[in-house]
């Protein structure tokens, strides 16, 4: 079976991946002196694990459909360059970093406003993002970006298939999955299980150094700084605290295994009253 040039071109998908740099999940999180943010020293920064699935899926779509461009779009400080380079080393084509002190403290709506402004200047048929970022666990930015752009969103995708300008997605919900169809352009959020992200190869890392990585400010995007950052936020962190410590409990001793089992059942019933 052969495809003529025209259909080949029409199948190409330009994809933008929304990528956030977050503390590695191994990191012990410490609260900063202001009690409203975390200490950023001694933190190992990585690509948000759910966004890694988004990068991988973008590369697979590109490979399957024979072309199209994969752009990584990140809002964050200078250190986020490292995460963008990692995605470029995996195989993405270009990176955009929106780095502006005015975005500090933005809530999901503010972040979405900035990302949407950058997306309006970028060619895309598909936007991919992790289902949530594992730092603020907000689940909001992708949906808010889709709303700003007026395109459909499909959340928690574990499988997708594109054909004729439409996309079919299998998504996880409580108790199973649903298959949803929508039209492109669309925004999808990726859920664990969609793929196994590749590691960057050494040649990939070398190539990534030469790939375009553009830095933009709010002024470049025409975004009013008062609408974002702390001043524009409608969801503001007042204080951070640690969850109450659990005191180490009772180790159940006993002669025979059956004794220990019986004692546990007794404690669960009489002391904890949970069964």
């Amino acid at each position, binding site marked *: 079976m052969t495809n003529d040039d025209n259909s080949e071109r029409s199948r190409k998908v330009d994809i933008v991946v929304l990528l956030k740099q977050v503390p590695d*999940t*191994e990191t012990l*999180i410490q*609260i900063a002196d202001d009690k409203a943010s*975390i200490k950023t020293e001694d933190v190992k920064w990585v690509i948000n*694990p*759910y966004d890694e699935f988004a990068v991988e899926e973008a590369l697979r779509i590109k490979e399957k459909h024979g072309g199209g461009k994969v752009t990584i779009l990140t809002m964050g400080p200078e250190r986020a360059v490292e995460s963008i380079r990692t995605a470029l080393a995996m195989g993405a084509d270009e990176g955009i970093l929106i780095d502006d002190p005015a975005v500090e403290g933005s809530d*999901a*709506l503010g972040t979405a406003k900035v990302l949407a402004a950058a997306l309006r200047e970028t060619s895309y048929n598909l936007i991919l993002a992790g289902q949530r970022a*594992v730092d*603020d666990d*907000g*689940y*909001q930015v992708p*949906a*808010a970006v*889709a*709303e700003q752009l007026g395109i*459909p969103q*499909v*959340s*928690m995708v574990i499988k997708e298939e594109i054909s004729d300008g439409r996309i*079919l997605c299998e998504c*996880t*919900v*409580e*108790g*199973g999955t*649903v*298959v*949803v*169809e*929508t039209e492109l352009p669309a925004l999808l959020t990726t*859920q*664990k*299980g969609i793929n196994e992200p590749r590691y960057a190869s050494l040649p990939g890392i070398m190539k990534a150094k030469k790939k375009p990585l553009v830095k933009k400010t709010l002024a470049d995007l025409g975004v009013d700084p008062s609408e974002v950052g702390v001043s524009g*936020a*409608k*969801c503001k962190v*007042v*204080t*951070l605290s640690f*969850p109450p410590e*659990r005191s*180490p*409990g*009772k*180790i159940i001793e006993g002669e025979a*295994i*059956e004794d*220990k*089992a*019986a004692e*546990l*059942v007794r*404690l*669960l019933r009489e002391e*904890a009253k*949970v*069964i």
Partner: protein
Amino acid sequence: MAQGVLVFAEQIDGSFRKVAYESLSEGRRLADALGETLTGVVLGSGIEEIAGELAKYGADTILVGDDPGLADYTTDAYTNVLFDIVKDNDPRILLLGASSRGKDLSARLTARLGSGLAMECTSLRLDGDNLIATRPMFGGKILAEVALGGTPQVAAIRPNVMEIIEVAKAADVERVAVNTGVVKTRVVEKRIETASKVDLTEADVIVSGGRGMGGPDFSVLEELAEVLGGTIGASRSAVDEGWRPHSDQVGQTGKVVSPNLYIACGISGAIQHLAGMGTSKCIVAINKDPEAPIFKRADYGIVEDLFKVVPAITAELKKQKD
């Protein structure tokens, strides 16, 4: 001026999610504190009969949006319809359950409303007229208190955390006009394992297995879960090994759970796992290694081979049932 508390009560195929009752009970508490009314909203197709159930959880008024276009959840239709209802009713506070669909809906809706949203709240309080929400971040390693702005102030409630309070009262049930608007998404197929499986986020009892399971055979845990009416969970290692599906994973990159009873079998207790189950009311750890970090978080621990002790617990429970 904005007034009252509006609660979106999610139903699937004619049954409300438990978190709908939890959200209504919490909504009742806030409405009482404000001296204002509580309105429940039900969307779906052929759901008028079940709508009245919400009175039991404190709703003064129940709004029913019944339309074939709402039979399946789609982001577009539900956002369009709920947006209209919010605009017509102008509530001070809007609560939703943070189920998969509730998260999707609340995120899209608040972007349209220009409202702040606190996702997966574990408690709410009022500071004057302002809603202050507590929500876990970093997979439960940190608790954040957040202040909400915009009208309404919107919070999505984490399932299984807030108390359900039943009250004896009547409610007005009103049907509202529905315009599903432009809908670009369509549900093609549903693959739901029905009532047989309670989702981890709503389970009262979770029996979880980790690397110590040594393979995909979780039958000893399944037998224990069955006598306890519980659900099976897994650590990240067990999922990464391919022993259990991703949907079973508990932890920072899986599901954050808070059952009444969490039994961790052969799970060492990596920081990401502890973050994901740390709010469980009672934690039991079973592990051969007495040094396993899980014992520091457990209410009860048994240092023993899980393959010996778990069947003994199952047998003890069965014996007492008979």
